């Protein structure tokens, strides 16, 4: 213990003797560690934000889309271009599949909205009242589309927060009429903002009763007269039953669509849970990738440490000779130089930790990169510190060995 304290003190003495040189060496490590910490924390913050966005949709949501199938490996291939889901499919699911709290069939198309002199393009989604429950939607003003509105095919609309902002700057939208293609709808409600997400946001959409949307010419029917829809959203009462519901819905739709056994589904089913795990996997990979790039900076810093230690060994050849004459063994000299380089890079690691932490807090506070809450987690901190000491030892190894192996007589004669 005493021996180690002496080594540490010698390392401190060595670093203090050459203040400028030591601080420049430390700077390399500081930059590396700060880069690792701040990039990783930004990455972690982004992941957390994306996941919370997805989960705000309702983590017990299952969506059925027609025509396409996602292979498990992630290779997407189109199976025909016809849409095959119908309103009747949705009704069948609601009636026959257990653990289902809401089945929301919907169709969407993009249309131009006009209010007075303002106009914008928006996603028009034809929905049933169940859409509100399936997507956890709340209205900030007015009311959501009711069963009566749906049954009567009322020309009413509920608009997203961004649509309200674009079309009605300052004016209260409730009761106002929007021109939507050839038709006019009356605004009956405004949705609370949910923020952007990968699933597309209702903030930029306008919701009208599905029956109203189906009155337009663009809506197709099957040969048997059933209404085609673009998706079905299913809310599951118990998240633990999501897999069961997925398999039940698959069986039901296969039999309804008369898909022969052995053939691929003519629809695809995805649960939010699945999406969350897929997204968090990819983004975690991204974070590690960012960390690796920052790690290169750390590596360069480490080479800087080695460089300085090599210079230091040459410069202190005489000191090494003196120490050897006084009885220092090779391992004493070795330990002295290793301790010094570990000390330098550990100091750099500590300072870099502070700088990186400060940077990531600054990014959070100033919202330079959007409203990301950066996360400096303890594993990143431990990793960065361990790596910086490791780098000190690794890159101090060669210079220390060179010092330890110096011939004492030649070292003493060195000018």
């Amino acid at each position, binding site marked *: 213990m005493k021996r180690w304290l002496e080594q540490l003190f010698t390392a401190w003495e060595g670093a203090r003797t050459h203040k400028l040189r030591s601080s420049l060496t430390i700077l390399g490590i500081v930059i590396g560690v700060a880069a690792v910490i701040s990039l990783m924390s930004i990455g972690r913050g982004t992941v957390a934000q994306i996941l919370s966005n997805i989960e705000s949709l309702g983590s017990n949501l299952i969506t059925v889309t027609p025509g396409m199938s996602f292979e498990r490996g992630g290779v997407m291939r189109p199976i025909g271009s016809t849409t095959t889901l119908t309103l009747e499919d949705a009704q069948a699911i609601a009636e026959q599949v257990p653990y289902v709290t809401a089945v929301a069939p919907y169709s969407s198309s993009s249309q131009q909205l006009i209010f007075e002199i303002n106009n914008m393009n928006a996603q028009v989604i034809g929905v049933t009242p169940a859409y509100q429950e399936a997507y956890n939607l709340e209205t900030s003003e007015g009311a959501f589309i009711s069963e009566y509105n749906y049954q009567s095919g009322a020309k009413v609309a509920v608009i997203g927060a961004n649509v309200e902002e674009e079309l009605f700057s300052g004016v209260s939208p409730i009761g106002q009429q929007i021109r939507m293609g050839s038709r006019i709808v009356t605004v009956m409600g405004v949705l609370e903002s949910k923020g952007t997400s990968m699933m597309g946001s209702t903030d930029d959409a306008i919701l009208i009763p599905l029956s109203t949307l189906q009155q337009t010419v663009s809506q197709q029917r099957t040969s048997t007269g059933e209404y085609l829809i673009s998706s079905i959203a299913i809310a599951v009462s118990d998240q633990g039953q999501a897999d069961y519901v997925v398999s039940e819905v698959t069986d039901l739709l296969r039999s309804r669509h008369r898909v022969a056994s052995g053939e691929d589904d003519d629809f695809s089913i995805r649960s939010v849970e699945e999406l969350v795990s897929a997204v968090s996997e990819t983004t975690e990979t991204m974070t590690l990738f960012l960390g690796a790039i920052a790690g290169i900076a750390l590596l360069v810093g480490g080479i800087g440490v080695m460089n300085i230690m090599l210079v230091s060994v040459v410069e202190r050849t005489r000191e090494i000779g003196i*120490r050897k004459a*006084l*009885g*220092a*063994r090779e*391992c*004493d000299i070795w330990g002295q130089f290793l301790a010094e380089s570990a000390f330098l890079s550990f100091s750099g690691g500590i300072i870099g930790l502070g700088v990186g932490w400060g940077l990531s807090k600054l990014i959070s506070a100033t919202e330079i990169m959007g409203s990301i809450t950066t996360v400096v987690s303890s594993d990143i901190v431990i990793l960065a510190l361990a790596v910086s000491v490791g780098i000190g030892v690794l890159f101090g190894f060669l210079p220390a060995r060179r010092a330890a192996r110096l011939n*004492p*007589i030649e070292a*003493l004669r060195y000018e």
Partner: protein
Amino acid sequence: MIRLQGITKVYPMGKGELEVLRGVNLHIKQGEMVVIMGPSGSGKTTMLNLIGCLDIPSSGSYYLEDREVSHLSSGELAQVRANRIGFIFQTYNLLPQLSALANVELGMRYAGGIDPERAVAALDRVGLYDRANHKPSELSGGEQQRVAIARALVKDPPLILADEPTGNLDSHTGEEIMSILTQLHSEQSNTLVMITHEADIAHHCQRIVHLKDGQIIGEEEL
């Protein structure tokens, strides 16, 4: 204390070899104060390095305190240097970044650990008690050599080796250093082997060994 038998030292030099010591036989008893004299190139320093276990002979045997040390590993030689030998150099060889006291403490570092009280006592014995916190650059040449003497003596080694300890000092300061060395030697029972080419300095010792071309050509008792 020291017994050299048929010691030779050969350095490779270009294609050929340089024979620095050619069969040296020397016996030094415990407590003796011996000076080695000779012209430059006679092999004095090489011989002192061998005696100080900084180097090993090419052939011959060297018994230090009845222990054959000419075949020890570098680690074992370091142990011998740490515990049995104190060095005093012509150029003092103090570490410039350390205070006088820390330099003295360094003498104990590899010999079992630092004892600050003993370091202060050693500085006191060479009359530098009040200069303990000065850096070498703030001390005169004579004072620096006194720090170096304190460093060599602080671990109380049986053998003290001095390579031209007065070589960088004026004659007055040189005399001062020599009187310190002789006084310390008379107080303690350690053996002192010294190199010099100044006759005045040599006469502080009990025996002079004359070296020329790598061989001992004569000895005189004083």
